[in-house]
């Protein structure tokens, strides 16, 4: 069974203080790793997809990287508006009646708080 573990559970930063969030996974054949942002009272918002080790994606102050065992979400010079819960997920290959599909397993998330 695929497993996704995120650390730390919570992270408090001062504005401008760069840091990284970790997502480690145990899957039978990685088919991608996804990052989402979730604001309080909202649904998750898709950020990135990474498919292979060494791949990197960037969006504003966020950069996601992938190795064979884990992914990092680097936050450079964060601002208070970056405060949110960050979730990662991996797809498991499943099949139903001859139709294959990706079934996502989510980590528990990291709650990021950036203080001004």
């Amino acid at each position: 069974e695929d497993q996704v573990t995120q650390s730390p559970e919570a992270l408090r930063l001062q504005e401008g203080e760069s840091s990284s969030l970790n997502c480690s996974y145990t899957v039978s054949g990685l088919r991608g790793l996804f990052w989402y942002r979730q604001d309080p009272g909202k649904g998750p918002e898709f950020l990135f997809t990474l498919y292979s080790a060494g791949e990197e994606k960037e969006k504003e102050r966020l950069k996601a990287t992938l190795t064979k065992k884990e992914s990092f979400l680097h936050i450079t010079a964060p601002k208070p508006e970056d405060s949110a819960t960050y979730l990662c997920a991996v797809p498991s290959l499943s099949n139903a009646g001859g139709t294959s599909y990706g079934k996502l397993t989510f980590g528990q998330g990291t709650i990021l708080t950036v203080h001004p």
Partner: protein
Amino acid sequence: DARVTQTPRHKVTEMGQEVTMRCQPILGHNTVFWYRQTMMQGLELLAYFRNRAPLDDSGMPKDRFSAEMPDATLATLKIQPSEPRDSAVYFCASGLGLAGYTGELFFGEGSRLTVL
């Protein structure tokens, strides 16, 4: 501005009552997911539809939960009878056919259910 619409946003009910949650996926999306989010379990997949057909409902308690897509613009999740342990936030998400592989799911704002 295309978005997934869920109703109701909040529901408080008593144990044993029927609860129906509705979701309007983004126009043109043919993949619909129902997730449940709790502090203890995080995001759990309840049901997965593609082209209105259920591909996976293994995460749903079959004796009390049911999910349907009467047409391409409406997905429903029904709980009958409801129990206090069903209290959670229920999210609907939609995407294009390969969303389970690309991670590009668009989530609604959720229906917060409290069963007393």
